[in-house]
């Protein structure tokens, strides 16, 4: 009996969180025009979420691409079609791997930073102080961080995919000696503009989801050291799961 009871309670908690997050999302959307009034704040957050994630995104992208080059070449050489390495890698990276890995890295690098920063503001009563000064912390703190993340994610996705393709090329062409012209021309004839669009749409969707989760968890963190830590952990976990679930949904819609 207690087990069922706990299960029901857990489900109720989950629903309550999902509902609170949806309400939070609507609130952020409703005040989002205010972001244009203070572009300076948004630019600072694009720097925080995007520019500071650049190194980790590019390094990871290069290695993901190089591994794809190795594995893809090994796989394709077994069926004697090494020349389609470029096509396979480009489609996989653009449509799937690029946006998803970027979102996971983004959640780990930028999402945690956002959540802990806002959580710490909550714990040290900075948010209440703002309210006392008649400054809306939603507009001043939450919105710029959310918009910064949303702007950064598609750009990071594009950079990730481009760098990964360079990595694939490095292994496939420079190391294994696939013909350079064939590598690129097969890729170009197989990849449609829709595939690029799909990748960027996914990047945008994941950007909205990960940024929202980060600011939500930070804003609603318990005002203790432990609460901030928990909010940070939850940001990563929830972002990762949400990204993978959303990936399925977006793919199913776009295919």
């Amino acid at each position, binding site marked *: 009996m207690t087990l069922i009871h706990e299960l029901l309670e857990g489900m109720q908690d989950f629903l309550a969180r999902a509902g609170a997050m949806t309400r939070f999302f609507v609130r952020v959307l409703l005040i989002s025009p205010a972001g244009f009034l203070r572009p300076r704040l948004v630019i600072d957050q694009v720097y925080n979420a995007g520019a500071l994630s650049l190194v980790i995104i590019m390094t990871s992208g290069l290695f993901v691409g190089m591994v794809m080059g190795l594995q893809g070449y090994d796989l394709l050489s077994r069926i004697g079609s090494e020349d389609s390495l470029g096509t396979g890698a480009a489609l996989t990276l*653009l449509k799937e791997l690029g946006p998803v890995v970027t979102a996971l890295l983004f959640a780990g690098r930028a999402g945690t930073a956002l959540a802990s920063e806002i959580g710490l503001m909550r714990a040290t009563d900075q948010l209440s102080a703002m309210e006392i000064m008649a400054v809306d912390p939603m507009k001043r703190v939450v919105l710029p961080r959310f918009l910064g993340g949303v702007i950064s994610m598609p750009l990071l996705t594009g950079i990730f995919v481009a760098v990964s393709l360079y990595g694939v090329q490095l292994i496939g062409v420079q190391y294994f000696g696939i013909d350079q012209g064939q590598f690129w021309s097969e890729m170009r004839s197989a990849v449609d*503009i829709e595939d690029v669009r799909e990748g960027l749409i996914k990047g945008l969707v994941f950007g909205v989801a990960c940024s929202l989760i980060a600011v939500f968890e930070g804003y609603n963190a318990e005002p203790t050291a432990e609460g901030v830590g928990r909010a940070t952990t939850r940001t990563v976990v929830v972002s990762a799961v949400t990204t993978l679930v959303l990936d399925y949904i977006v793919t199913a819609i776009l295919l």
Partner: protein
Amino acid sequence: MRPSRAIDVSTGLFVLLGLVAIVFLVTQISNREFSLTETSFRLNAQFENIGGLKTGAPVKMAGVTIGRVETISYDMQLLKAIVTMRIDKRYDQIPTDSDASIFTAGLLGGQYIGISPGGTEEYFKDGDQVAFVQDAIVLENLISKYLFSQADKETAAKAEAAAATTPATPAKE
């Protein structure tokens, strides 16, 4: 935090890098050719059967890609498939008696339109119609034709054999 100018510079660099990456993906990786000015012209062709031809398929002359298939539609009056091709302006001296055929790249590859040049001194202009066409060869049709012809031969041979044996039997009796 760093001074505001350093933030501006690195933010700008990041946004620039992101946009360059996206432009690279759109123009270099995908098969969309962007052009600000009109650098191509259209040709139409009517086919009885286009097989597996798709929009975006290459149009080739002597193996060189000179354009792409833009649209494929079906004309209810003519009861034929209408294929519109976009040809690069550089190749504006294609004789008007050239013929367009649908070929398959390799045994199972994608299909493309091959144009073999004719001999007149008149050249195709924008919106012209290719008069001489050859339809796609559908593998299944070929196979079924071959099989049925084999079957026909066999029945014919059997009938012949039967005709040869029947007059012989009464003679034996």
